[in-house]
């Protein structure tokens, strides 16, 4: 009897947080939905979405952002995977200090890092534009791709690799059939840590292109902060939210397939 009651009261410890989550996580998201479907007098409207889908500027920015995010993620993966692999496999004898040096920039204020990049560009007389944007994005997000992959490869059960080699697989086969598939969870979280932030970032984009190029995050921020088009900004946030939801559902199904 004591036991049962005790367990019962222990769950009450979570109540403050559950209330907090409701007030400051669930309610704010509800606010996005409410504002997205209202005009500035508070009446129900779909105009905010009509505005998004009929104005080529907004919808172009959306797809342009996806494109930039796609290429950033791809470049980060292509540069980051070999680095993570070399550091994660003990046979390359890379010191942990070197591995830590890759992670160090991650704990560094990203705006400062971006400004440093911009300064280097201006030092080298490189005009700011799409090229510098891509470079800066990769520069900013590369550690976020390397870290999860490095983690997965390092923690991988190396005896599987040895077993494959003993059974006659060569280096290439071991890599393609064992190491790469086993590192996929790290790759997935690397992609998640690079793709969405690239779409939604606005300060980095603004600084890297002197506001010449706008990504989806930039137009959300502009509309919200202007105050005039608050509801339109909310609608854009809502679109982004739906997009996040869809990508996460996709990720979930991927996970289920992995388990099979």
């Amino acid at each position: 009897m004591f036991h049962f009651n005790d367990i019962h009261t222990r769950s009450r410890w979570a109540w403050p947080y559950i209330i907090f989550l409701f007030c400051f996580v669930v309610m704010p998201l509800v606010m996005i939905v409410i504002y997205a479907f209202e005009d500035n007098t508070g009446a129900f409207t779909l105009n905010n979405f009509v505005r998004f889908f009929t104005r080529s500027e907004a919808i172009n920015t959306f797809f342009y952002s996806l494109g930039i995010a796609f290429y950033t993620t791809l470049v980060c993966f292509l540069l980051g995977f070999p680095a993570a692999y070399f550091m994660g496999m003990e046979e390359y004898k890379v010191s942990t200090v070197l591995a830590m040096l890759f992670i160090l920039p991650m704990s560094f204020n990203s705006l400062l890092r971006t400004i440093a990049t911009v300064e280097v560009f201006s030092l080298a007389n490189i005009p700011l534009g799409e090229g510098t944007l891509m470079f800066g994005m990769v520069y900013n997000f590369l550690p976020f791709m390397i870290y999860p992959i490095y983690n997965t490869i390092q923690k991988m059960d190396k005896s599987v690799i040895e077993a494959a080699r003993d059974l006659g697989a060569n280096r290439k086969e071991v890599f393609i059939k064992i190491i790469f598939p086993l590192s996929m969870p790290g790759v997935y979280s690397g992609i998640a840590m690079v793709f969405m932030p690239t779409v939604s970032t606005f300060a980095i984009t603004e600084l890297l292109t002197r506001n010449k190029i706008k990504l989806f995050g930039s137009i959300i921020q502009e509309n919200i902060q202007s105050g005039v088009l608050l509801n339109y900004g909310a609608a854009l946030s809502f679109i982004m939210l739906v997009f996040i939801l869809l990508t996460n559902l996709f990720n979930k199904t991927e996970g289920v397939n992995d388990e099979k």
Partner: protein
Amino acid sequence: MMKNNELSIYRRIGAKLYLTVLLLALYVPIAVIIIFSFTQTKVLGNWTGFSLGLYTNLFIGEAGHSLNMAIFNTVFIALVAAFLSTLLGTMAAFGIFYTRSRIRNKVLMVNQIPIINPDIITGVSLFLLFVALGISRGMVAVIIAHIVFCTPYVVLCVMPRLEKMPANLYEAAIDLGATPSQTFYKVIIPELLPGMVSGFVLSLALSIDDFAVTLFTKGSDGLNTLSTYIYADARKGGLTPELRPLFTIIFVVLLILLVVINFRSKKHEED
């Protein structure tokens, strides 16, 4: 022994070379900032002789004042938010652990939302909530916002400790004559402490590094953290030169921390 399994020296050198080049590329901008923190020029790339002027300016100069306020705010907000997040998150993890699994899964699902959401969505959603409720934005709003995105990580840090804890530890302590509060402070808390510490440190790092959420919740009364200060500064064009020594100091401190942690863990392995 088995020749075909040995990695050839060329591969090893190639790998090291690749890593070195990549690292150098990553560190060029940081190096430029550090080098030019030792000269007083306003514009980067224009070396005007060695000087520690920027360092003294940072701490005692006129230019450093608003910057110092921003640094103070950053540290203050980070400490308060990390402390409250650790408290709230640890209590939550404890409670969630003893909740029926259906409710537990739902709470943990909501707990994931701030982790998955990009900063801008967290920022915008809280901005709209504060606007709708007429709550003025400012220090309190920023701290609440930081607790929103820090606490989920604390929960995730503490939960594994609870799962590792022997199921009847609490009952065992009670049976051995400890009072419930003694059990809590002397048995349960020490078990959870490593998770709480990593949650706290992670919260500090997240809070210090945050930009977007702070921007949307700081209001317009001139409250600035380091991130929003840098943003406003860079928007005006030109970076306050005093940011360069600050950048250098932060970098050196992080580097030292890293080396210390590395050596300690190595020592740990040897022991």
